[in-house]
């Protein structure tokens, strides 16, 4: 059976004063039904732009989706008329954003912000929508849901607001939820609660989930598969196990070294990824990571390496030295 979501060679540009920013530059990945995948990468690697592009929510101007396909349940979202796309947003695909403090409208009640989605997509009347909203708030673990409906966002904590966002995302029984750094703005104990809640609910309701994060620690616990993103494209893809224990791309290795890990002997120090993130207005045809890569060779400047299979099943890496570096990198990581 075809995957639920297949992103193929997606490209999104921003026209700015400094030139054309190629924020998403040939992004490809797949999500199976009910599966949880992660997209990881440093700040500025195009994770958010990639997610918003799938939903066709890129502000234009300055942004523009310039190419690629997004096959969702058999349809190419890039070719849908705007009206049909609106049905997909909030109907088939829900979204949870990073900033719970600003992502809810301060002048509307929690209840209204949930029910309007239901009214929009289900044509439900006010009473039915209210009933569903109570049910949803209970589902995301909020006590006294009927009272919460009448409250405004400023009366809730960050964690509570993120629960509301999850309720909104789940409101119309979507097949997929895209969560863009859903816990980055929350404190650590709340982070774990929210992630556990999302894992729990998506499993129970059989909803696929894309967790976008720059925290590899998060990924290991919750995602079945991991896509590592760099300069607008996926550079390595595999199961969490493969990415952790047998990373094949020099960038993944660098990223792993920057995270404290409990399952390894304590390292002398944590290395942030060396060097500067690339200037996205000046990408050439070569590998975008080569200037920061200690394994770079001459061919890296000539063309960007494709995302090729490694010898492990389902494990892909976009590095010319994919095979020969396997052993070497395992020892560095």
């Amino acid at each position: 059976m075809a995957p639920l979501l297949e992103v193929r060679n997606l490209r999104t540009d921003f026209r700015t004063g400094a030139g054309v920013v190629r924020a998403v530059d040939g992004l490809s990945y797949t999500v199976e039904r009910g599966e949880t995948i992660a997209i990881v990468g440093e700040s500025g690697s195009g994770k958010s732009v990639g997610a918003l592009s799938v939903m066709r929510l890129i502000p234009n101007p300055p942004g523009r989706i310039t190419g690629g396909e997004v096959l969702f349940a058999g349809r190419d979202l890039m070719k849908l008329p705007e009206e049909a796309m609106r049905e997909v947003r909030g109907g088939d695909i829900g979204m949870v954003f990073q900033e719970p403090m600003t992502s809810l409208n301060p002048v509307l009640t929690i209840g209204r912000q949930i029910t309007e989605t239901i009214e929009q997509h289900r044509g439900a009347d006010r009473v039915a929508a209210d009933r569903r909203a109570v049910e949803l708030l209970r589902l995301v673990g909020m006590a006294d849901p009927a009272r919460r409906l009448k409250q405004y966002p400023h009366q809730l904590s960050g964690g509570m607001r993120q629960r509301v966002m999850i309720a909104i995302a789940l409101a119309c029984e979507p097949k997929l939820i895209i969560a863009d750094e859903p816990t980055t703005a929350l404190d650590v104990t709340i982070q774990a609660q929210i992630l556990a809640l999302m894992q729990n609910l998506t499993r129970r309701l059989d909803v696929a989930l894309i967790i976008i994060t720059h925290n590899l620690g998060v990924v290991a616990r919750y995602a079945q598969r991991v896509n590592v993103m760099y300069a607008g494209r996926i550079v390595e893809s595999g199961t969490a196990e493969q990415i952790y224990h047998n990373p094949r791309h020099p960038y993944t290795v660098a990223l792993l070294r920057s995270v404290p890990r409990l399952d390894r002997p304590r390292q002398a120090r944590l290395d942030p990824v060396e060097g500067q993130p690339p200037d996205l207005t000046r990408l050439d045809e070569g590998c975008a990571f080569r200037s920061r890569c200690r394994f770079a060779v001459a061919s890296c400047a000539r063309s960007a390496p494709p995302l090729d299979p490694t010898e492990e099943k389902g494990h892909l890496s976009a590095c010319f030295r994919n095979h020969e570096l396997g052993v070497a990198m395992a020892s560095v990581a």
Partner: protein
Amino acid sequence: MYRYLVKRLLLVIPTLFGAAALVFFLMRLIPGDVCLVRLGAGGATVTAQALHTCHVKLGLDKPLWLQFVLFIWGLFHFNLGISLWSGYPVSYEIATRFPITLEIAIFATVLSIMIAVPAGTISAIKQNSWTDFFVRTFAISGIAMPSFWLGIMTLIGVLNLSQYLTGREWMPPISYIPLLQHPLENLSAVFLPAITVGYQFSAVVMRMTRSAMLEVLREDYIRTARAKGLIERIIINRHALKNSMLPVVTVIGIQFAFLIGGLVVTEQVFNINGLGRLLVEAVQNEDYTLTQGIVLLVVTVFILTNLIIDIVYAWLDPRIRYA
């Protein structure tokens, strides 16, 4: 919220007192004397005797502090005193001039809200389109044109147009007829000054609406609304408009309050006997009591307008309502 409002209402008293003191003493700093103006009107020489008699009659011979105490005492009884110039009660002088100014201010405000809020909103939604360009040009012109010039142009336009259409020149009536008595005549007198003032007013409100709306449209919760698949009309009407109205309400309030005391030029151009002209006359005549009365009225309007702004704010924004 209610406690806040009560507190605000109680603050009105010291504010008014401060304004009263300020205007009382500032007026007396201006060199000149109402008795000199009155007695010397025809160029006659004024004898010291006559001047003294006049001072005694108007109570200006009393020590300054006593005059002030009497003025404040009067205020507590809602008694603004007698106009030093005309001899009529100040409240009567104001009552004859205030309605037309208030009416023009209200018309101008309503007119500009009706035009400016939709225009500014559309302009923001269709940023950099022809509509936006047109609205912005219209707004910039409104801000750039001095009101007396615009007023004169409007009058000349109406004269020529009526001449051309009916063969007879038509001018708006000069005397004030209350709205309820003769709606049509009243409106024809108020209409031209109201649109002249309202144009400038709406230009300011339009720019404010546009920029506030542009800012709100960049907010995260608008992105959330889009991600929910809401239709554009709901995104604008339900999610963006209420938030973008907060700064606009302030501008409208301040502009309205300003119109009450600041219509001097427009009233001059259209030959309207409003409050603005009365104030100028009162100051020129060294008419202390009348000036004090008018200034206090304007201050009161400012305070009330601010109070209304606060109430509207609370209505728009639950963060204020529940604070």
